[in-house]
């Protein structure tokens, strides 16, 4: 590994303040004509994306960016998350251009709704970027809480009865979860503050990187208790079983681009918070590794079994996210190079693939007005691009070669076996097989099965979605294919991100 240079830079600040400012202006200028909000959001995200790319370039060339005495700290893992969030945000905004206005009832003031939609979307991305660039454990909590607040109104966007229930459930459960995380954070901080002065001399105990330096010296019982609270807290945000109750409803009732955002990014923020906190301790406590493996395996199996019995495509995708986040968290919990590498690889793959699938379902809804498997069929010829994108997503999430999900899952199987958790590896393989069955069945039914039986769907009028919708999907599908065929493209950044976690874990702070 080359020498790492620590640079003081304003980029970590700009990457979260830019979308936040653009989002706030969108909310304030809601009276402007409806088209303004989308273009303004796109402009904000282009700038944010450029900053993220610049950060990515800096990190890939061996730099770590910090600001405000290491309170902001961007390493490989942060750079990966920032880039993913910004690029997915761009695709989602472009996709929303025709989609969101088409779903608004005529009596609704489109200016107000669109300004709320794009404003909150941008503020969410700003808060997510803050989560991914902070090194301060309290700021991590705060920014995570703000991502929930920013997305609550996006979940409830349609204001129908089901969306109201989903929004309330989401906000309530994630708030309760985040308060558990607060207890965990408080206990870790207390464990560090209780150490003799000589051991904490010169350390700032709210910085994750400084806490990691004394992680082995903290009282073990307190550390285990704190980790249980952190797993419950951040696990709720990540949608892990048994803290997942909010996820299927929120994903199903939110507008389709927001479902893509929730599944692609929001739950990953919870996983990111777990990556930054529990990995400080997991290599030193085998109990944490086993506990995380049990919860992750339960998520995998429960999620995919529930996905298999769904008739609603969005609920099927939502339950599949519960299952897939299990893979991500299991790898993180293992605390080994292979485990963390596989976990980050799967996080990246799942972000792209699940966003692609949700956007494809959005396209199906746009064309037919329904998302029920039992009412769909024969769309393959009418919408070949959507069919192609859905099939790419379905085969990829199933973990079939040559898609990159195959490689990330295989890495995780190996990592679990290497850590001596054969049972976890077997559960992961079994879940993979069920995932293939679930998605191939759905794809076949929607695109090749018998044409729709719903009298509300006029098959002769069904046609491919507008280019701004399929454009983004096609880009993601091609990226997924490219990552599968050339997985080495990802190696440098994934390796850097993994090494950064391992270094912080080892207490080596640059």
């Amino acid at each position, binding site marked *: 590994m080359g020498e790492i240079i620590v640079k003081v830079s304003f980029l970590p600040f700009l990457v979260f303040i830019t979308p936040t400012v653009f989002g706030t202006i969108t909310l304030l200028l809601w009276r402007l004509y409806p088209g303004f909000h989308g273009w303004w959001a796109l402009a904000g995200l282009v700038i944010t994306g450029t900053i993220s790319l610049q950060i990515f370039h800096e990190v890939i060339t061996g730099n770590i960016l910090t600001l405000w005495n290491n309170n902001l700290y961007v390493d490989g893992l942060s750079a990966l998350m920032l880039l993913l969030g910004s690029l997915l945000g761009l695709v989602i905004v472009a996709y929303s251009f025709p989609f969101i206005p088409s779903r608004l009832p005529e009596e609704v003031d489109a200016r107000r709704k669109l300004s709320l939609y794009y404003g909150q979307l941008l503020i969410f991305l700003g808060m997510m970027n803050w989560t991914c660039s902070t090194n301060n454990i309290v700021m991590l909590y705060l920014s995570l809480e703000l991502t929930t607040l920013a997305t609550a109104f996006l979940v409830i966007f349609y204001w129908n009865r089901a969306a109201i229930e989903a929004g309330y459930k989401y*906000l*309530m459960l994630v708030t309760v979860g985040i*308060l558990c995380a*607060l207890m965990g954070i408080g206990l870790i901080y207390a464990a560090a503050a209780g150490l003799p002065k000589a051991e904490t001399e010169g350390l700032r105990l709210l910085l994750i990187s400084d806490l990691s330096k004394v992680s082995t010296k903290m*009282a073990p*019982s307190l550390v285990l208790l704190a980790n249980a609270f952190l797993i419950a807290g951040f696990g709720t945000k990540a949608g892990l079983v048994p803290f997942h109750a909010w996820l299927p409803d929120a994903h199903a009732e939110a507008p389709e681009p927001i479902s893509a955002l929730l599944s692609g990014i929001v739950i990953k923020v919870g996983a990111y918070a777990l990556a930054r906190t529990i990995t400080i301790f997991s290599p030193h406590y085998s109990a944490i590794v086993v506990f995380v493996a049990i919860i992750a395996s339960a998520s995998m199996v429960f999620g995919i079994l529930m996905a298999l019995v769904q008739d609603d495509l969005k609920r099927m995708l939502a339950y599949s996210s519960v299952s897939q986040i299990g893979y991500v968290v299991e790898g993180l919990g293992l605390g080994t190079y292979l485990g963390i590498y596989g976990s980050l690889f799967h996080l990246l793959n799942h972000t792209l693939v699940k966003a692609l699938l949700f956007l494809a379902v959005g396209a199906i809804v746009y064309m037919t007005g329904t998302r029920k498997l039992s009412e769909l069929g024969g769309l393959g010829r009418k919408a070949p691009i959507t069919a192609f994108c859905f099939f790419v997503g379905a085969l990829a999430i199933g973990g079939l070669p040559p898609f990159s999900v195959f490689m990330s899952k295989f890495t995780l199987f190996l990592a679990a076996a290497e850590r001596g958790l054969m049972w976890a590896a077997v559960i992961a393989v079994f879940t993979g097989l069920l995932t293939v069955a679930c998605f191939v069945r759905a794809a076949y039914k929607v695109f090749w099965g018998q044409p729709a039986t719903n009298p509300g769907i006029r098959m002769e009028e069904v046609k491919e979605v507008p280019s701004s919708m399929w454009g983004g999907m096609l880009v993601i599908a091609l990226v997924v294919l490219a990552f599968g065929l050339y997985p080495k493209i990802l190696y440098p950044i994934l390796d850097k991100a993994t090494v950064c976690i391992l270094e912080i874990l080892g207490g080596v702070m640059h």
Partner: protein
Amino acid sequence: MGGGLIITLMVIHLLASMLIAEMRNLRAAVWTLIVQSFTLSLIILAFGWGQVWMFIWFLWAVFTKVFFLPWLFFRYMRMFPGREEEPVVGTWLSLALVVVFVLIIYQLLHTYISMMVPTISAATEPTKSSLSMAFTVFLLGAYVCIVRRDLVKVIIGVLLLENGAHLALISLVPGRWETACMGIVTNVVISAWLLLYFGEVIFRVLGTTDTLKLSELRR
């Protein structure tokens, strides 16, 4: 400030928390929440006596927990029914359950407190009792969130969770500015506000604050 005063305040805090959990009259429950939050503010002041940051946290806690949040509750509760939905197990059994729950939890925590402190020397009074009570209040909040049917009561449960977490924080690390900083920025006031707002919308649509009937919104 003296350990005796802190423990007295803690006992009032715990009793108030139990009353909040069991009062059927929601207005009375919010008034009790004011008392509970004010004792928490005084505990913050007592633990951090003479420290500027702690004094700022005390003022912030008084503003948000004692004035602002109760004001929000009273404002939204004008639209809700004044009485809580009856617990599934009935009033008296519910009361007995809460008392037993608190006694068992407190006794367990007090006995095994050494597992929850950073050093053995920290397992002394008033930390020992205050930490046991903090965890008890936190778990009581979780209990209220899980078993209560009324939407307003569940939101009050969230506030009990928050107060329990803050109480644990101040009990464990009383003398550092970071503690005050953590306490100030981790207030869930906006979440509680939004939950009340969503609650009002649910009441308008569904005509009840019974969370067991929330699934009717999907039909």
